[in-house]
């Protein structure tokens, strides 16, 4: 029930008048304004973040098809050109291993017919076991495996954006 008293101020109630009630309203409006400001600033930051994160990259796709199962006979090791990945198929399953040396990024050479050394880097002499485990040389860590799966059409796909830490082979 609001009406103006003699000094021109609007009172909220008949009984009390003056500062305490007006203060409450001012406090509420202030809180409202601060909340709106916080929401606005927060929302702006979030949307700015969405604007700045690219939705498309002009880079080669990290998830790529490598072929059908028939293209990789048991016991084969086949390098996928242009991707720095080798597909190794054994009796237990198939896996994709990165050929990017963990030292400074050269592409390692697959070494055939050597039970100990699977990959040797021509740049600074790093050597890796057939599983990718680092044997010696300049490289600090093992060659990572990438996630691999078979889609519903029977095509094998490598997901180079996800590292296969557990080193589980794909069983198909």
């Amino acid at each position, binding site marked *: 029930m609001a009406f103006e008293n003699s000094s021109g101020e609007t009172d909220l109630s008949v009984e009390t008048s003056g500062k305490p009630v007006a203060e409450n309203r001012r406090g509420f409006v202030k809180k409202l304004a601060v909340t*709106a400001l916080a929401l606005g600033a927060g929302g702006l930051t979030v949307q700015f973040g969405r604007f700045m994160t690219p*939705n498309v990259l*002009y*880079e080669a796709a990290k998830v790529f098809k490598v072929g059908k199962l028939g293209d990789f006979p048991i016991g084969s090791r086949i390098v996928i050109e242009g991707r720095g990945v080798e597909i190794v198929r054994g009796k237990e399953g198939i896996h994709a291993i990165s050929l990017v040396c963990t030292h400074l990024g050269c592409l390692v050479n697959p070494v055939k017919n050597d039970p100990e050394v699977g990959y040797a880097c021509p740049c600074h002499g790093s050597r890796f076991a057939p599983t990718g485990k680092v044997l010696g040389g300049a490289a600090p860590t093992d060659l990572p495996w990438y996630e691999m799966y*078979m889609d*519903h059409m029977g095509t094998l796909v490598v997901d180079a954006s996800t590292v296969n830490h557990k080193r589980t082979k794909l069983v198909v």
Partner: protein
Amino acid sequence: MERAFLRKLIALCVICGLASFALLGLVAFRDGKREWKDYQQEYQSLLLEKIDRVANPVFFQRVTSMKPEIKQVMLDGLGRVDRCTTCHLGIEDSLFTGAKQPLTTHPDPRLLESHPVEKFGCTICHGGKGLATTYDGATHQSNAHWPDPMVEKGFMQSRCGYCHNNYAAIEADELVLGQKLFKDLHCSGCHKVDPGDGVMAPVLTAFADKGTGSFDFTHIDGDHSRQNWVLEHFKNPQKVTPGSPMRIYAMNDTQLKALTTYVLSLTERVFTRDYYPNEKFVAEE
């Protein structure tokens, strides 16, 4: 008086502020809604129904955790980027042969086997605006104002001629017939295609590279697309280009279509060597 005015001003300020706030929120909301997100959702739910969770749990998991994203293929050799697969998700997926557009599979799977989407994209054969992610943006209509609008269904063979020379080898019957008609009707007597041809009439060496805007549709009855212009031009050159000395060459519909297809395959665009069939570089025996 003063105080009332100030109060009105403050009220106006507050209202405008809240209105802007609401509008900005609306902008953020609407920007998140994209045409392709709906199609991707539909594809995901349809695919989940079709695949077996037990047979391939890894793949099933991947499909369940699919997030909406723009999909593109970068084709440096063709100088383009195609985002068609953002909506046309089932194009290489044989499980979607019966689905409705845009999820349906490509009609001729043999074509996709020899021209996989990863290497060729879509616009090199179909035309359209590869960078777009909406129906209208991608210029799905053949009469759109774009240098390379979508090719109409009956004239798809015209794009085979962009890279292929040996039409018979690829079973492009329309091109074979069109090329034969072009030769039999002596078109190159006036219209130059190869060195040594006549120059009385417009040169056709790069005819397929002309966009919709380069054609005059004033006297065209039907669709304002390139394919239709060429068809109507053959039916009556003097009507379509008044003052033209070209006479009407009596042809039936099949012949008209074949000749149109052939003429629309004449391009001067070049791509990198790995995109051409071997026949182009190896001389015929």
